[in-house]
């Protein structure tokens, strides 16, 4: 990929991601927010492709799009009472929060700007999926197994909490 194409692609994906993310937090309709969230995730997947992380890009679309589809469904379902156009309002802390967040961004930007990261690699790995697979099942086998248990817990927990309580007593 030539530099020019890469640059254009980066700015396109970044713009999609950032604008969609802004929409998520600024839209007043929860359904719109949820749909824009999917768009933001797709933009991030594009960024991963540019970073030569093909597998992560695929996982990003599969997992996040799946999770988000559920989020949308529940978001709509749970706010079905009242007006959907006013389902996603901000609280009273809008301006203080904006102030805080702008401060956080300024600090991050300033500190990252002064950092010398050392030598940067010219290219990423050829076969990132292969390396990833090997790493996950050898060096990172402990977190891998922990993640399996974590998913079991999440499934169990979600069922226990969300299942209807019997009104027998």
């Amino acid at each position: 990929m030539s530099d020019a194409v890469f640059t254009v692609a980066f700015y396109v994906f970044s713009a999609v991601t950032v604008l969609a993310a802004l929409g998520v937090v600024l839209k007043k309709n929860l359904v719109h927010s949820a749909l824009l969230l999917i768009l933001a995730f797709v933009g991030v997947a594009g960024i991963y492709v540019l970073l030569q992380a093909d597998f992560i890009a695929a996982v990003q679309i599969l997992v996040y799009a799946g999770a988000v589809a559920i989020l949308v469904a529940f978001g709509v379902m749970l706010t079905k009472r009242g007006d959907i156009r006013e389902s996603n309002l901000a609280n009273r802390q809008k301006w203080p929060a904006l102030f805080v967040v702008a401060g956080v961004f300024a600090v991050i930007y300033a500190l990252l700007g002064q950092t010398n990261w050392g030598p940067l690699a010219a290219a990423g790995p050829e076969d990132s999926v292969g390396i990833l697979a090997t790493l996950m099942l050898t060096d990172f086998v402990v977190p891998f197994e922990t993640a399996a248990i974590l998913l079991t817990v999440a499934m169990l927990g979600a069922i226990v909490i969300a299942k209807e309580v019997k009104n027998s007593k």
Partner: protein
Amino acid sequence: MNIDYSLLTIEMLTAGLALGLLVLSLVVPGDQRKGFGYLTAAGLAIIFAISFAFNGVNKEIIGGMYLIDDFGNFFKQLALVAGVLVALASIPYVEKLESYRGEYYSLLVFATLGMVVMVGAGDLISLYLGLELMTITFFVLTAFKRGDSKSAEAGIKYVLLGAMSSAILLYGLSMLYGVAKTTVISELVSTIQAGQISPALILGLMFLVGGFGFKISAVPFHMWSPDVYEGAPTPVTSYLAVGSKAAAFAAFVRIFMGGMPQIQEIWIALFAGLSALSMIIGNLIAIPQTNIKRMLAFSGVAQAGYILTGMVAGTNAGIKGLAFYLMIYVFATIGAFTVAIGFSNATGSDEIKDMAGLSQRNPLMAAVMLVCLLSMAGIPPLAGFAGKLFLFSAIVAQGKLWLALVGLIMSMVSVYYYLSVAKSMYMGEAADPSPIEIPGSLKLVLIVSMVVTIFLGIYPAPLTGLAEAAASVFALK
């Protein structure tokens, strides 16, 4: 690649116990699940006993990705012993549940497993996964009282704030990875040079401290703890108060003492501030509390401040004090919360004023509450006194007299509100003087907590030895 799986015995047994309980709860019919609490406690107690075989074993797995050492083992034992006590203390609560009794105990053991993985983790990824396993299990347990509004509300507050703090912590971890170019904690020592601290590292440290501050409920990241403590089922609260806090401290020590002792002066300044704020604000807000669980939550904030002084010292003596204090904190806190469990089980109230005259209604409960609270206040000859002595002498040795003074003064303040509970229990007139009966499992927990708290106060040597071995893992001054 060969991994010596026998080194992971504790982890595998704990996972096996949790999964076994899960399967059993599907097989055993609902009305015959009374024994699950005892089964869980017995299982964890056996694993606890086995863990002593690992005392003195110091080995790395997969090039430092996972560590089996005295430090990790100390905190694994802490998580296991706390798990045993909490499982026993849960029995009367679980009997009132209409369903999912087996699943409750299974989740309790999963939370223990999360702590075990977290304290043994040698790289940031394992540490993060262990942390999340523990935290997400606690999300579920907090909201476990189905149909109870307070429990659901505590659950949602904990989930949202917990997930946000995890994201902040994770941002810090990503910076640490970027600066060090590795996720293995022991390699941080060589890749982060003292002379040339990059600005990104400062950024990472700030986010890390914020995220971890939330997990240990240090001021100013403590807002969640009183609400979650009050709303969650009380046995879960007690485990959250001791287990989650201890495991987070252990992970803290691993990253900062194990990975970045060379840039001590930066993070020590951050921790000194957190510590002083937590001691002062936690103790002052605890005074006007009327609900025993909220009072213990703010006292827990203050305790986090005392324990942080061990990090501020930045020496082996400091870690020894930290480990010792966390272990005795387990018994004092679970003892106090178990009194609250027994009391609310019998009367349905968590209010301190309703505890008036408890000494006539149930002398054992009043005595245990008194001993546990006085231990937290640091009154000799109880274990808390020895713990504070180790912590404060460690920071005085490093020339931080001011922090020790703050600790001493705030300990005296804390005596005031601890004693006002005692005054109510011993001098107050009970509105309803009928005696309170508590189940045998609670009695057992109460007696164990009291005996250990008194015994370790008079004769701390056995625990001091273990804490010293744990601290010696880190090559500090």
